């Protein structure tokens, strides 16, 4: 027999998650901006950059065309930036006092945190779905297994990023500081990742800190996982294997989710927003 408390918690998680999904349709302008940015990246910048570096990089990508390599990088950075933009949504909610309302609802705080993270992550996946379809059509991916695993891995990654941004927003309790920190982290993490360059190229550059950060960077891990999934030939030049990436991504997401739950349950209270 199912535990009624468990059933009730699952119901609450799904209802809380529906809060973010309900708001998704109000973000048409934001979606249009993202689609425009993405189209520009795919059609202009990605083409241009791959024209410049395509031949010289093939040995590091296992023969994968740099344009294709880069497309999965852009898709990964899109997942990341959409997940992190939830921070702005939550900061706006804090500004408007919605957080006070949420904290007063008859739901366990930990359950609420899980629901919020899940809702934001699902919103991210739905939001980026049109762009993913564009990328996978260009790449010619038709393997259903690859597509489903890609979506699941993107969701797991997004859960980690959203948990992180929840912790950040609720810790700093400031719109300005949220803007600055999110902007700085965004700039650093995306650039110090394998979104643009394969890990062997970064390693060959001889800049050890850059290599270590790129290796440990969650964005790199998702981007490379998607590349391995779509291009088996890339796996041949990727010396660390798939298992460490999977373990890393699950640990990254679950670790941050647990921290977010702990923070919601033990420390979070309204007020003090600057």
């Amino acid at each position: 027999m199912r535990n009624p408390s468990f059933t009730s918690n699952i119901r609450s998680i799904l209802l809380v998650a529906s809060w973010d999904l309900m708001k998704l349709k109000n973000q048409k302008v934001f979606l249009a901006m993202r689609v425009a940015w993405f189209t520009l990246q795919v059609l202009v910048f990605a083409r241009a950059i791959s024209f410049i570096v395509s031949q010289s990089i093939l040995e590091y990508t296992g023969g994968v065309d740099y344009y294709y390599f880069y497309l999965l990088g852009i898709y990964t950075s899109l997942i990341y930036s959409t997940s992190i933009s939830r921070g702005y949504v939550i900061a706006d909610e804090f500004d408007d006092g919605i957080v006070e309302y949420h904290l007063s609802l008859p739901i366990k705080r930990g359950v609420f945190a899980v629901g919020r993270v899940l809702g934001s992550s699902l919103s991210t996946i739905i939001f980026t779905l049109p762009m993913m379809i564009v990328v996978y059509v260009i790449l010619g991916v038709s393997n259903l297994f690859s597509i489903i695993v890609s979506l699941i891995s993107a969701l797991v990654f997004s859960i980690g990023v959203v948990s992180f941004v929840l912790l950040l927003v609720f810790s700093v309790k400031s719109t300005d500081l949220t803007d600055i920190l999110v902007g700085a982290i965004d700039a650093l993490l995306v650039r110090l990742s394998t979104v643009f360059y394969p890990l062997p190229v970064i390693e060959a550059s001889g800049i050890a800190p850059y290599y270590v950060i790129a290796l440990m960077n969650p964005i790199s891990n998702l981007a490379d996982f998607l590349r391995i999934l779509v291009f088996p030939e890339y796996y041949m030049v990727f010396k660390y294997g798939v298992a460490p990436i999977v373990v890393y991504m699950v640990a990254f997401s679950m670790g941050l989710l647990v921290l977010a739950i702990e923070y919601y349950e033990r420390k979070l209270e309204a007020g003090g927003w600057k």
Partner: protein
Amino acid sequence: MKSKAVEIENFTKKFGDFTAVDNLNLDIYENEVFGLLGPNGSGKTTTLLTIATVYKPTSGDIYVYGHSVTREDYVVRKLVGIAFQDPKAMWIDKPYELLTWHARIVGYSSSEAKKVVQDVMELLGLWEHRNKQFYQLSGGTRKKVELAKVLIQKPRVAILDEPTAQVDVLSKHALWDVIKKLRDEGTTVIIATNDMFEAEKVCERIAIIYKGKLRALGTISELKDSIPSGDLVEVQFEGGGIPEGLLRALSDIGRVEAGSSVLKVYVEKGEEKVIDIIELFRRYNVKILRIMVKEPTLDDVFTYITGAKLREES
């Protein structure tokens, strides 16, 4: 003996160095409409938000039906519903969507939620606004959406923070009836308000909070009786002025304010003192045209209590 719905024990809340509520002790009984009165920044909202577990006490504790807000916050939230002072919605939210989500969260099934939301929205005159965005609603309508959340939830303890601020006079009366009906259906209602008329109209007991401290507590008549010289005897008289001797004699009875044709005497137990006042007017041959004994309003009580504290502190 009345059972306690909310027990506030040595509750203190600080924000940094600022003490918003200072060692508050208060009991709120089951099934009463309890008023928290105080000027802006007195600590009313902080107290209410702590009962609703939105804030955590710095020290002390609050119990709702015996459950601690610090140790059993989830249980407390299942018992308490709150309508915030500032309606909680984003500018693009639509009332129907928001209230339906709220109904689902507080435990209704999907079909029940639709029904209860429609019923409550119709009761509050919100149905025609159901699909408007929040920025298109007037201040009063937004407040009604906030109140609708509590009516949908039907909690055992309803917290209403200035429920009729920005609401027009006609709607105010309707909302007061709704609040009383909520109480009649078994809910304990706690109202924070600046509106003395509202407090007199709706509340059975009142606490006056000022600068984070409890200054007075009781029923409305107890509070009125608690202020010295609380009654006012107002005398309209004939002729040009009051003889000095009469003024001196009246001053022995109470505090006197004399005008050209109206004289006010602030006394305790006005219904007894009025006979002495009439007798003094007769003795000095000043003809009384009209005489009235007035009780102090809650406004007078509030002004006296907060003013007295202000004087003490200065």
